[in-house]
């Protein structure tokens, strides 16, 4: 039935005299099943979440950088979360709300922006376009995926407006803090809403991911073998597999937490006294939660990063006008990362009291994962090396990603040492590490993707000059924010503390903290340039040409604004890999994937010449113009 449906659809598209029935506004833009529209829905939701998440960080950076500041002016926004000190009359950020801010910042950025906003946008947009498919395997599931995400977003957003405040046990929601509603105000209704929102989010991710995998495996156009897939698709494919295997584990962990919170079980709770009174819960283990959480949590960081790495591979190769260096090595290292990412989770738990022997096993595995990561970094650099580099904004952001990936990856090797981690765990050093390697790198990949594929999404170009300004302010700003954090972390500053003014040892860092806060606010403001550029260009940008970056992949063979079904005529067939840039002898410095070898005798390598059959003779010759 479903196949029949798909085939009909394809047939219909292939006789292009068939006119499409008019779609209503609602089925075209709101409950759309078209992958391109769903991608834009994810993108715009992601941008909105990124602004909210960024604003939260500005508020807590104000607190960290300027602990004596009068925050009364924030009352119109935050209301009761700013307490007016009776003695001094100064407005102070509520201490528990500080924790809520940190928690929601992490949750929003990791899940809503860099998972849904990133994978949701680019997997949806690029998979059918780059593999040569009319749409996703199941448009309906794809639509559901967005609306589950939307429902999840609404619930998470609603939790800001309840009197006890949103969840505050940090994005990793360790019990017992998250399991006992009486432990802090954010562990009450806010935590419940967090869990409900995340359960919906997981459903959304699974619906999306299953669709991505099924589409990539089953709907590739003729000739698009796995070794001719663009690296973007490889990255989305592996990301979806990682998600499929790890998100259900978070669901299980959350289920047990919900039972502990609402039904009185003791999976994670044992021997706890609150206010001098013993709780009835016996026999649970909070460490069990950490295992389950990080079994998702570590793969999750690669779910966030891999799509960006794929996007950058594509952009760097295109704009270096060179084939990507080590195509197969790139695929191999992504596979290695995907597999290894499931066996290193306990490096987040070195100081949880785990068996030191287990610790050294996990240390070894963790350090091994640096190898494929390094291979990728080298391949980017060697692709750039002696390239004919075109510095488009997308290219700048991609190079920025490589920079962050390296500088953040190096500190990962520090943290991967179980002994060093005793000092560094839960300090700002960790914050610096993952904001560079995951936060900033993945964010830059996402931004690069937007600049690069904007013409395909909206048929217009984003403004270049604003793009350059956006790049330099973000790039410099991010280093100004996170580089100093390493020092603060080495000095022992713990993460997630409301204030350091009570500790004399830390007073030497007051200025540095203020500096970081200023840099953070400036960088946040710089993002508004992007937001402006984005929305302005949708309506007023320069019209795009069909293949503005002289790229080789299939999406640039569609009309400037591809309609429903992507190609008005038959789906193009694929003859070569996606990285034929600057091929010696070729007429132009790029050859599209749709060009048969038979048309490029001047640049074919011997085995390609053979493939094209230009050597032998055959009677079944066909004519092509």
């Amino acid at each position, binding site marked *: 039935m479903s196949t029949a449906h798909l085939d009909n659809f394809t047939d219909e598209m292939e006789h292009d005299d068939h006119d499409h029935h008019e779609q209503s506004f609602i089925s075209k833009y709101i409950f759309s099943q078209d992958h391109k529209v769903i991608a834009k829905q994810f993108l715009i939701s992601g941008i909105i979440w990124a602004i909210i998440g960024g604003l939260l960080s500005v508020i807590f950076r104000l607190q960290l950088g300027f602990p004596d500041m009068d925050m009364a002016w924030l009352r119109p926004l935050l209301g009761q979360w700013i307490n007016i000190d009776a003695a001094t009359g100064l407005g102070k950020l509520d201490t528990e709300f500080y924790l809520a801010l940190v928690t929601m910042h992490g949750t929003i950025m990791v899940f809503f922006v860099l998972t849904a906003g990133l994978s949701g946008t680019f997997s949806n947009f690029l998979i059918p376009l780059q593999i040569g498919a009319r749409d996703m395997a199941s448009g309906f599931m794809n639509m559901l995926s967005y609306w589950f995400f939307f429902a999840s977003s609404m619930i998470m957003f609603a939790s800001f407006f309840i009197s006890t405040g949103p969840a505050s046990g940090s994005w990793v929601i360790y019990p017992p803090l998250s399991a006992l509603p009486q432990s802090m105000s954010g562990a009450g209704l806010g935590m419940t809403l967090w869990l409900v929102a995340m359960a919906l989010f997981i459903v959304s991710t699974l619906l999306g991911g299953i669709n991505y995998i*099924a589409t990539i495996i089953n709907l590739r*156009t*003729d000739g698009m073998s796995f070794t001719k897939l663009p690296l973007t698709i490889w990255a989305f494919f592996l990301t979806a597999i990682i998600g499929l295997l790890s998100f259900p584990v978070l*669901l299980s962990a959350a289920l047990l937490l919900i*039972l502990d919170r609402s039904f009185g079980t003791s*999976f994670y709770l044992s021997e706890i006294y609150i206010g001098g009174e013993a709780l009835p819960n016996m*026999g649970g283990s909070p460490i*069990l939660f950490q295992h389950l959480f990080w079994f998702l949590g570590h793969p999750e960081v690669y779910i966030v990063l891999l799509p960006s790495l794929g996007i950058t591979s594509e952009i760097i190769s295109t704009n270096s006008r060179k084939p990507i260096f080590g195509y197969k090595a790139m695929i191999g290292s992504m596979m290695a990362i995907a597999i290894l990412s499931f066996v290193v989770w306990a490096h987040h738990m070195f100081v949880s009291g785990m068996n030191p022997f287990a610790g050294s096993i996990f240390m070894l595995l963790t350090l091994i994962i640096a190898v494929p990561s390094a291979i990728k970094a080298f391949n980017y650099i060697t692709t750039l090396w002696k390239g004919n580099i075109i510095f488009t904004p997308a290219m700048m952001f991609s190079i920025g990603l490589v920079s962050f990936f390296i500088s953040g990856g190096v500190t990962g090797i520090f943290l991967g040492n179980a002994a060093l981690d005793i000092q560094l765990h839960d300090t700002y050093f960790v914050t610096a590490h993952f904001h560079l390697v995951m936060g900033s790198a993945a964010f830059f990949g996402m931004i690069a993707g937007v600049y690069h594929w904007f013409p395909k999404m909206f048929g217009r170009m984003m403004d270049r000059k604003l793009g350059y300004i956006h790049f330099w302010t973000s790039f410099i700003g991010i280093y100004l924010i996170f580089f100093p954090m390493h020092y603060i972390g080495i000095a022992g500053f713990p993460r997630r503390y409301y204030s350091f003014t009570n500790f004399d040892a830390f007073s030497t860092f007051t200025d540095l903290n203020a500096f970081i806060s200023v840099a953070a606010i400036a960088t946040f403001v710089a993002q508004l340039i992007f937001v402006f550029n984005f929305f302005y260009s949708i309506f007023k940008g320069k019209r795009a040409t069909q293949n503005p970056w002289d790229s080789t992949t299939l999406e640039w063979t569609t009309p400037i604004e591809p309609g429903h079904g992507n190609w008005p005529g038959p789906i193009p067939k694929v003859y070569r890999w996606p990285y034929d840039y600057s091929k010696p002898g070729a007429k132009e410095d790029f050859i599209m994937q749709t060009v048969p070898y*038979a048309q490029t005798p001047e640049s074919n390598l011997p085995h390609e010449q053979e493939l094209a059959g230009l050597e032998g003779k055959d009677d079944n*010759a066909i004519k092509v113009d």
Partner: protein
Amino acid sequence: MVTELNIKEVPQKQLGINPKKFILWLFMVSIVMVFAALTSGFIVRQAEGNWLIYELPSQLWVSTVILLISSLTAHWALKAAQNNNSLQTKLGLWVTLGLGLVFLSTQFWVWEILVQHNVYLVGNPGGSFLYVLMGVHGFHLISGLIYIIIMLAKSYRANKVSDIQFQLSLSTTYWHFLDGLWIYLYVFLIIYH
């Protein structure tokens, strides 16, 4: 420009199985991961000691056998649909549905027996885990029953039952999967409880 081309260079058709079937398989993978997490959590927690020891109610045998039989009837219904035997298809589906419900009630009965033996959902995780494993499996089994009900409705609406054999093969695969999942859980519980 017109060039003579050789037909040798024909892009290969890419292999693919039916996307719907593939989606079902991926969905089952995600369910497997849910249970992999729960059962490995079980093992990890058990290794820490302070674990409630109790007899597994022998009635679980009954439910296991019932579920196994329901797999056979589901298979029978599918075969009948392939032979376009409408009556047997419907009968097979009804029986499968009935056995599924009996399985669920048996599981519930087992919970009552557990309570009589002072093994509760609330209390030592040794007991709680049993309830969670059975409960989450039961939850998925309900989804399988809903799927069967949908197929029943389709079988009544279809002109020929052989028209729905593909969809029926999906629902049957899912049902066998739920059966296999329970066998896994049961063997797991026998070994580790």
